[in-house]
């Protein structure tokens, strides 16, 4: 296989993860897929700078988040913050504690600040270590930890779990099996 074909296949294989990260960052829809497209084009153009044998996904995520955050900062100056509105739409159902609908969860996730959401996704969902996440975000490991902690607290609050001492009987397995959100 030629180097070009290998590059193409490697990028193709990363597209599902790239889409998930893009949607996590920017919400569902065309914007997320545009972000994937831009990331692929930048990665293609810059592939000479990718160190063979290092983590391709981490490299691609870095390109994507830098693209997203530079656009986000631009857009912020133009568009009014609508956090309050969206938060008002978020309805919590105390009787359903521990039985969170994925749609509710997604809505709560959207309420987090972009840097908190990014940290939580990298650590809790994408399986990166704190060190890798810090490298991707271009910040200190302690900063990632702090953002993840704050993100968790905010999520629990939004999902009205912060006052719950126990989860409902149909909650997912609660011990041992899901270490990804635990601090190292």
């Amino acid at each position, binding site marked *: 296989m030629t180097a070009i074909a290998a590059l193409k296949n490697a990028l193709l294989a990363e597209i599902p993860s790239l*889409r998930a990260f893009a949607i996590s960052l920017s919400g569902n829809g065309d914007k997320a897929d545009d972000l994937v497209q831009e990331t692929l084009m930048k990665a293609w153009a810059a592939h000479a700078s990718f160190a063979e044998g290092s983590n391709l996904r981490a490299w691609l995520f870095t390109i994507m988040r830098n693209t997203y955050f530079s656009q986000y900062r631009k857009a912020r100056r133009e568009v009014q913050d609508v956090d309050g509105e969206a938060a008002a739409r978020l309805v919590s159902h105390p009787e359903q504690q521990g039985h969170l609908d994925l749609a509710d969860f997604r809505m709560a996730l959207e309420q987090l600040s972009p840097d908190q959401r990014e940290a939580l996704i990298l650590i809790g969902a994408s399986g990166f270590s704190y060190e890798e996440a810090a490298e991707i975000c271009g910040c200190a490991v302690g900063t990632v930890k702090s953002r993840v902690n704050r993100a968790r607290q905010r999520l629990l609050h939004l999902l009205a779990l912060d006052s719950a001492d126990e989860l409902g009987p149909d909650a997912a397995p609660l011990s041992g099996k899901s270490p990804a959100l635990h601090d190292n």
Partner: protein
Amino acid sequence: MSQNEEKPLNGKGAVKKPIQAHLGDQLKRYFSSIVSEPVPDRFASLLDELEKRERSGAEQSQEARE
């Protein structure tokens, strides 16, 4: 970096472990539900296009040298 944002959490910091694990499960379910969605065709087409351009570019520079 904002001091305010990054300072360590005080007192009420730690989220209870079972709830934390539950949150972790939700997060992974959310993410993997997107990962398993079918990928729009536009990306494969884009990569085909980039590959084609790169190949024809390489041929052209080869011809130029000859």
